[in-house]
């Protein structure tokens, strides 16, 4: 709920609409070369076609998640089965219905199941890894800035900052697709986070234990210079679905034609 005082002095208008962060932007489709091998040969990049989709401009905020747990009491802290959210779920909240950080900061300490449930509640879903990677490849002016060392360095600088400082509010600069805060704020869940299985020891790339993942070793990243991507994959693949961390949030996506990609 947000209350605002309009020009008419006598009225105090409270609207039930969540604020602008809930807006979706249309991301056009395109051909995309993922840093992860998409074809059967793990060392060759197979371009894939990304169908057009809609993506939330911002990560989900504390205010929005609060509204969600109010109306979906199953997802309040303390009421959610351990299968869906572990002991760290919403740990930073002062109470099950009271966020511990700013309303406009991205919600963190949410599990994959909780993130999914939120997205389902607004007729949406989590983005797939490819959709996320595709949207995140852009900077302010280019759709694919991944070759630019400055783009990489900016992202690496965020990784290098310690994780125990309070999170900033959502609302960073929009990239070429109109999506904000894909980098520099929080890690984000994706729908197929458990498809990103790198080996626990990442130096075994190129030495696949073919039985371990049925026909492939753990995934090797094709572009060794994509550190930004690599670190994101490392983080997501270290998690289980009920896990949460203080630096991990999410945003939702919608298919244009209604089906999962």
């Amino acid at each position, binding site marked *: 709920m947000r209350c605002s005082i309009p020009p008419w002095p006598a009225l105090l208008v409270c609207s039930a609409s969540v604020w602008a962060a809930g807006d979706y932007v249309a991301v056009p489709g395109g051909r995309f070369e993922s840093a992860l091998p998409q074809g059967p040969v793990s060392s060759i990049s197979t371009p894939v076609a990304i169908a057009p989709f809609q993506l939330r401009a911002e990560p989900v905020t504390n205010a929005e998640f609060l509204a969600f747990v109010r109306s979906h009491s199953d997802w309040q802290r303390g009421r959610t089965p351990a299968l869906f959210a572990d002991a760290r779920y919403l740990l930073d909240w002062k109470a099950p219905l009271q966020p511990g950080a700013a309303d406009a900061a991205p919600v963190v300490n949410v599990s994959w199941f909780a993130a999914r449930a939120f997205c389902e509640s607004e007729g949406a879903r989590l983005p797939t890894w490819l959709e996320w990677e595709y949207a995140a490849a852009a900077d302010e002016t280019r759709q694919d800035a991944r070759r630019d060392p400055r783009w990489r360095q900016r992202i690496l600088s965020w990784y290098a900052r310690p994780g125990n400082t309070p999170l900033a509010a959502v609302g960073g600069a929009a990239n070429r697709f109109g999506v904000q805060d894909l980098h520099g704020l929080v*890690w984000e869940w994706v729908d197929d986070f458990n498809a990103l299985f790198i080996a626990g020891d990442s130096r075994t790339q190129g030495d696949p234990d073919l039985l371990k993942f049925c026909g492939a070793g753990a995934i090797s990243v094709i572009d060794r210079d994509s550190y930004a991507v690599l670190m994101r994959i490392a983080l997501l*693949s270290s998690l289980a679905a009920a896990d949460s*961390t203080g630096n991990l949030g999410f945003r939702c996506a919608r298919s244009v034609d209604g089906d999962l990609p």
Partner: protein
Amino acid sequence: MNARFVAVVLLLYASALVQAAKPAGAAAGDFGPPRGAPIRAVLTSPPHVPPPLSRKFPAKVIVELEVIEKEMQISEGVNYTFWTFGGTVPGSFIRVRQGDTVEFHLKNHPSSKMPHNIDLHGVTGPGGGAASSFTAPGHESQFTFKALNEGIYVYHCATAPVGMHVANGMYGLILVEPPQGLPKVDHEFYVMQGDFYTTGKYREKGNQPFDMEKAIAEQPTYVVFNGAEGSLTGDKAMKVKTNQTVRLFVGNGGPNLVSSFHVIGAIFDKVRFEGGTNAQTNVQTTLIPAGGAAIAEFRTRVPGSYVLVDHSIFRAFNKGALAILKVDGPENKAIYSGKELDSVYLGDRAGPNLAAVTRATESQARGALTLEDQVHAGRQLFAGTCSVCHQANGAGLAGVFPPLAKSDYLAADIKRSLGAVLHGLSGKVTVNGQEYNSVMPPMNQLNDDEVAHIMTYVLNSWGNPGGRVTADDVKVQRAATPAAKPATH
């Protein structure tokens, strides 16, 4: 048949018995299952080392190590976000005994942004443990290994991108003591070198992020011991007394650089180079590979500040690879006296300045060689060659070497003198009324130009008649007479 022979046979038999006592297929260093109650390992922060173990049997040792990402100073006024094992760079020192069964708990602090794992070089197993210890923030992993090999080993994080995790300080040392322990020393210290890469320049103040491009190019901004410039200097210097034995466990976390480890003013009595079993004695500087370690021991004798450096010396003085071991105690003048004398030193004439020769050569090339050029060049060439015998003023040495100054011998026949320079001269000669009977060796080391310049100089010096000798003259003269035996000394 003598007693010695019998003793040898008995010894062989006894050792065979000992070998047979090991279960079949057991690896060397496997002393059987752990005995006694599990022990919680004592870990220390650098530069301290846990006390030596006095256990005589293998045990189960529980190691708990926590990963913390934290911001610390890398240099005065310069902050850097380190990823640490145990809150320090290098990480906590782990000390176990060969044959111990180590139950390793790796925790990743909930505030961490990144997942982490650990590869211990002393582990025999996939990834050195890395495959089994991949840990998300807010989680703990556990794996168990047997420490089969004794030695000093590096451990480090091996999560992709490995270089970045190591570059942020995720390394440390684990010591696996031999069963009988290490020989006793007075002090043990833990020192580990690392190279760091920041986007800002050396000592540029403020928060400095990691620079991947510099790391790939292997151009560090800082090369330091124990994670920061000045971590072991000033009041944080290591302190010992004279006549004490010191053992340094020195590691090199890298990620890129090899260390040329040296302690200024000390010689290592013993170095277990590469941390292996063999030792070298009397070592000044030892190489420690990236991802490697060594054990250096020496006895202190003379008080003072002993500087630990990477002897790739610009790293020590321009990037921070400098630490201090302060030795206190009475002086020992017999070994080192300090400065005894300070007096004036005049030095000799400056070494030959051959600028004039160069000028002459250039002039000649232009076809503009003047008499003056030749005289100047000849003067420089004369010095140190001819002057040795004939003296700088051409006076010669009475009864031994004829003079060149106002020489009637020279004036009478310039070609004859030129011949002496080129081919040598022996036998009786009379110069300026004096008889000389020496051997002048041929000056085969001089080329035509040089001979020409020298001759011209002599002719125009000390009252000689003047004139000029050109390189062509010399060439002609040289060809005319067969070469004599070369000058011998």
